[in-house]
């Protein structure tokens, strides 16, 4: 099994790596590139803790092969804040205490960002269904949903 050389863009950085043919993008991010913000909760696409954007689409990095990243763009939680400035979603998660243990938080933030890019004014129900693939066991989702809707409102006002 020989390694595959992949050239890709991660969080706007040109990146190269070698990976095994059956190695997932999640393993590459975490084990080869040190981007451990994406978490593995299940490895089967059922928990959303490894959510990343692949060419602008929300995906589970555990269900993408590293080799598939060739020539594509990947965005992870590590690229969400700009310098010292948190994304409004990140800020609202803090303000609303939308995390307890925090393990699901990166995945929720990536998924919520994808939601607000497509639906800047989601209803509570739309937000709940969009985020149904992200499991949280601590919060009961209440404060997460409030944070997402509040961030959406702030982002709409900011235009």
């Amino acid at each position, binding site marked *: 099994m020989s390694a595959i050389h992949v050239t890709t863009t991660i969080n706007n950085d040109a990146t190269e790596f070698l990976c095994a043919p059956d190695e997932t993008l999640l393993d590459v991010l975490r084990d080869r590139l040190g981007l451990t913000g994406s978490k593995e909760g299940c490895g089967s696409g059922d*928990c959303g803790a490894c959510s990343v954007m692949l060419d602008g689409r929300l995906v589970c990095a555990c269900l993408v092969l590293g080799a598939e990243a060739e020539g594509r763009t990947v965005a992870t939680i590590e690229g969400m804040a700009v310098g010292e400035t948190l994304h409004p979603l990140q800020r609202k998660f803090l303000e609303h*205490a939308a995390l307890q243990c925090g393990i699901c938080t990166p995945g929720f933030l990536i998924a919520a960002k994808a939601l607000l890019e497509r639906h800047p004014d989601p209803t509570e129900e739309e937000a709940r269904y969009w985020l149904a693939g992200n499991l949280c066991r601590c919060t*009961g989702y209440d404060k997460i949903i409030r944070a997402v809707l509040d961030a959406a409102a702030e982002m709409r006002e900011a235009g």
Partner: protein
Amino acid sequence: MALDNKTDAGKRQFKIVGTRPLRPDGVDKVTGRARFGADMSAPGMLVGAVLRSPHPHAQIRSIDTTRARALPGVHAVVTRADFPTVDDAAIADILDNCMAGDKALYDGHAVAAVAAASGAVARHALELIAVDYAPLPFVTDVDAAMKPDAPALHPSRADETVPPGLSANVMARHQFGHGDIEAGLAAADRVLERSYRTEATHQGYIEPHACLASVGPDGKADLWCCTQGQYMVRNTCAAILGMEQGSLRVTPSEIGGGFGGKTTVFLEPVALLLSKKAGRPVKMVMSRDEVFRASGPTASTSIDVRIGMTKDGRITAGFAELRYQGGAYPGSPVDMGSMSAFAPYDLEHVKTIGWDVVTNRPKQAAYRAPGAPMAAFAVESAIDELARGFGLDPLEVRLKNAAREGTRASYGPTFPAIGLEATLRAAKDHPHWSAPLGPNQGRGVACGFWFNFGGDTCVSLNITPDGTVTVSEGNPDIGGSRASMSMMAAEELGIPYEKVRTIIADTGSLGQNDVTDGSRVTFAVGLATIEAARAAKREMCKRAAQVWGIDADAVIWEDGAVRPVSPNAGKHPPMTLAEIAAIASNTGGPIAGHCEVNAEGAGVSFGTHIADTEVDPETGAVKILRYTVLQDAGKAVHPDYVEGQFQGGAVQGIGWALNEEYIYGDDGRLQNAGFLDYRIPVASDLPMIDTVILEIPNPGHPYGVRGVGETPIVPPLAAVANAVSHATGVRLTHLPISPPRLLAAIRAK
């Protein structure tokens, strides 16, 4: 040092406690920087993997690791033969659970482990290990395991409480209560007898178990892991491996949920032994499949209840016989279930009998108020059925029978001031209780209780030269406790919250701390933090008095500064914490306060939940329409995180009520070892969870804090079941109320 300043709870005006500042570890957790168990790495690190039994019960005749050892890239292979012998029975069980001895006792039981240069090599090596199993008859159901001819897991391990002649799988019998049950039942207008069942559930933390072990040739070892208690990990691993506790330093990572499931060890002793053998650091991470098959789910139960009630709603007697299987080793939480079952009620005649049973399932671990939710499901369902049967308001019936100050608790002691009645009255006054319901909709109410406790706790509080403050404590922050500790330190010192930073120490930096469990952290660590701050204040008073050349008794601490107690002591402008800190070197050296205590005196906590459900009568699907949690928190230090505990516990309970269950096949193997078919609630399953925080101060804590984390999972099972019964007219006595079960009941009506 006397912890004598406990009485200001309730009358004190707080400046910081009770507000909602941002948590200090928050930015790291929203940017992906926070390091959880699997995020650790070390130079030269190997990857460990575990071979697990595919059999629910089997003699292990032999294990041949020759081919695995010969595989290039494999650095160590261990089986039980590599572990020392352990005498202590409890530790021996933990070891046996981490690595099977003569027998594999459940599907997923570890039988061997390897450390290799990569995960791929490690997985390949596992396939090269040949285990010769002789499969044995097995049992996974609690009632089946209690039959005298059931396959026995262990020969003669029952303790002295078990009468002779029972199944060898019965490990212990517990009995609690007072009064005369038969006399009480005779006074009832109706005696309800019902049997209930609940299935095993899993804590469902999103972060799988993970650790990184590094053992040097000198025997000094370091371990990084996600755990609810680094000291517990240290002490348990040291006992299993025959190490001295001081030679093993355990550093907790951030923890991605625990709920009781991370109060023991699974991988850690194995990783340490692999590292020792390989001479390299070894990292081990469970897959989700391993988490379900081989960590510590909770008990499944079978419970018989007899309750007598008069037609005006007075409970005349309560009896319950509870059977809990706790997996392959003794120690199911049936004792806690038996003690808590009737705790919310003031009963003259009450009795519970609990049976601790072993089966071919993974060794149970604590799960949030261990043992209590199932017992509450049975009792709260029966009370509801009786109340509705008499046409009484189930909330009024609970109020009529509620335990209050002076009530002799069903488990023995007399209650001091408690908040159950307050939660019931708040529920009655809440708009939820009187909101209209539509067709196929129903409303349920249920109460819950948890003991809470304190335990060994250390806090070290340091005043830095610039007047900021660091707090070191020994309990992993599982849901915002760093914020709570910083708030209590800042409150006590009279400085802004932002000036305090709380960190979680490794085992080398503080004395023994009990696990983050039992809803103990805000209570016990909070108490120790306040005492540490008071110690620092005493020292600062001394320093200021020295500078002013007056007696230490002549100064007081007020609003973050030392002041002369009266004009007689001289005219000195207040000396602030920062000013004293700046001259610490000149006045005797660095200033710190610390507290080491076994924090007793935790206050019990009660809650009342209201659930509205809508049932699709053609499919049995249940939708949660509205949900309200009302609970006594003593004093809510950070209300956001108190609400978060209420909401999270309620939703775990909702999952338990509706969909979550361990499903074993006829082959004794777990059929749903993944988040696809072990169905924890998702965001679209739920409404907002309303919360009402009641504050009946705990006199045992300086600020009145009670534990809040566990009680919220106790009422939901019955609250949901009662709501479904109200909506459909059929009563489900077997959880989860999965659609096939409910539809069958509706169609049989």
